[in-house]
């Protein structure tokens, strides 16, 4: 099946601001996203995981052109997103949408839920008047909110309710592809499951394609068909979810998996505790970006000098490690 979303060689660097009120030396360029490629088949979910600052949100925003990518090709629904002019891009926005991490910051505090849901309908001339009201009520019902919430302002809603409004707003234009940028990270534990179930149902009902960004590997395992692991702006491992969780090939993936706390006192596994901190993407280490923290016993001079390529190690499973054949 041809992919619905195809990303090739995506690059986004943020220029360093000058320190000291614009007089100092310019800071180093932040390589937020450095040559990222993946594809998502229609109706499937790609989970994108990695630690804070590794560039996950930047990938999500760049493929929707909410920020301009520096290089790379992004195809969504057969259209080249990067080359699109302003007007066709706005038309394409009907097919691709985004739900944000912060349910408090992503809703306009001065608008009611009704106004927020009516706006996209007006922008794309999808519906107006009574028809729009009917659609708004249906949307609210679909995301599990009482229609009476249409009158509410964001600050009158709980975190889970706000996130539902954010999802309803994204769905209002009937997109095919949704970027979910950490949609449950800010929610209470007992509310996360509600929203995850809702997202799964919507995906089945509407045949949606998801890019699901998260830092929680357990959540990603629950929802994703394929998983890509990012470290310092690069994808270090990409595989079908069952393969990745059963047999991670990159030492970073292995460490990440072992660091997730498991809510079972009997099943406390041996944690691999990585030394040091996540380096800054402004100064990525040479060679393999993971080498200063890598616990792999075979780690050698090659790791410090030669950047490993992302290559297929097992059928469908790609890893960027010189020793991917001998995983931890």
């Amino acid at each position, binding site marked *: 099946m041809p992919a619905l979303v195809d990303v090739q060689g995506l690059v986004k660097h943020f220029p360093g601001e000058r320190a000291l009120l614009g007089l100092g030396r310019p800071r180093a360029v932040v390589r937020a996203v450095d040559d990222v490629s993946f594809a998502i088949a229609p109706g499937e979910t790609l989970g994108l995981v990695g630690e804070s600052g590794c560039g996950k949100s930047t990938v999500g925003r760049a493929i929707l052109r909410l920020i301009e990518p520096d290089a790379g090709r992004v195809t969504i629904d057969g259209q080249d997103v990067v080359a699109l002019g302003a007007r066709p891009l706005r038309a394409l*926005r009907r097919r691709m*949408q985004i739900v944000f991490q912060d349910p408090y910051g*992503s809703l*306009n505090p001065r608008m009611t839920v009704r106004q927020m849901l009516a706006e996209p309908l007006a*922008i794309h001339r999808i519906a107006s008047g009574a028809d729009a009201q009917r659609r708004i009520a249906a949307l609210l019902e679909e995301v599990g909110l009482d229609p009476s919430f249409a009158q509410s302002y964001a600050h009158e809603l709980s975190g889970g309710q706000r996130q539902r409004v954010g999802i309803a707003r994204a769905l209002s234009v009937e997109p095919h592809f949704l970027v979910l940028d950490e949609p449950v990270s800010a929610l209470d534990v007992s509310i996360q499951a509600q929203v995850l179930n809702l997202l799964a149902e919507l995906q089945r009902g509407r045949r949606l394609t998801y890019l699901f960004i998260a830092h929680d590997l357990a959540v990603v395992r629950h929802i994703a068909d394929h998983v890509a692991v990012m470290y310092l702006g690069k994808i270090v491992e990409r595989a079908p979810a069952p393969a990745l969780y059963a047999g991670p090939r990159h030492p970073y993936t292995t460490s990440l998996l072992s660091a997730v706390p498991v809510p079972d006192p009997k099943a406390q596994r041996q944690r691999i505790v990585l030394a040091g901190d996540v380096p800054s993407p402004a100064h990525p280490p040479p060679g393999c970006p993971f080498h200063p923290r890598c616990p792999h016993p075979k780690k050698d001079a090659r790791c410090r000098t030669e950047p490993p390529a992302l290559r297929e190690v097992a059928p469908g499973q790609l890893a960027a490690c010189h020793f991917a054949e001998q995983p931890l």
Partner: protein
Amino acid sequence: MSVWTWLTLGGAAVLALAVVAELRRRLQTSAPGRRFFRHPTAALGLFVLAFFVTIALAAPVVAPYPPYYQIDIGHPNRPPSAQFLLGTDPFSRDVWSRLVYGARVSLGIGTLAMLVAATVGTAVGAVSGYFRRWVDATLMRLVDVGLAMPRIFVLLMAVALWEHIALWALVLLIGLTGWFGTSRLVRAEVLSLREREFVAAARALGAGAGRVIFRHVLPNAAAPIIVSGALGIGNMMLLEAGLSFLGLGVPSPAPSWGNMIADGWHKMAVAWWSSTFPGLAISLVVMALNAVGDALRDALDPRREAA
């Protein structure tokens, strides 16, 4: 005559009190409203403003004499008395009546000039902050120049070249030289708002620049604009008064508080009242505006929402 003067004066005061009391009652239900009235001088400031606005609006009723009427050319500079509440000026005109009509001019010019400044400043700031890059660089250089410019001096030059300046031109001049600060403020606000996720969400939904600016960014920047506007009116009034005092603003015989001070100035020794009362009026109103602006800042600052 004098009974009527007292009656209207008292009536205006009572009306102003009623306005403040009613506002207080209505706003008490909202948290920002309560914060507003918690400011120690907010209610007093509001009262002073309401009082002057009332007499300005009802000037023909409140003023015992027409503002230009020279009562008795032979006996100018009469001291305050039951008949002439605040005395008469060197041209034998009733100071109270002129003060009342002057309120129209002074408050009106201050408010209108501020509206001009706020509109231009908001537009420039919003465009600059939203589009950034060269648009921002160009506009902000312009603002830098504007802020560095000695405003009084430029106004003096412009007005001096322009004999008998029309009121609307004066309003425009004061307004158009007073928006630079507002534009900086709005730009800073817009720069931070445009990074907020709800703005990204609007863009992701396909909203164009105009919609994003007017529906999403500016409504959320309203609070600081309003506060700076309230604080700015006082400045505009002082500027107008200064120009009028120098004889370059509102042309005589039309009464403005500034030229009233000028009219009485050289007779200060024998008739202190004809300059002092308009001066007091300006001071009172400016202080009241500052108090109200300050209280608005308390009320609208969302960081206080949590407390």
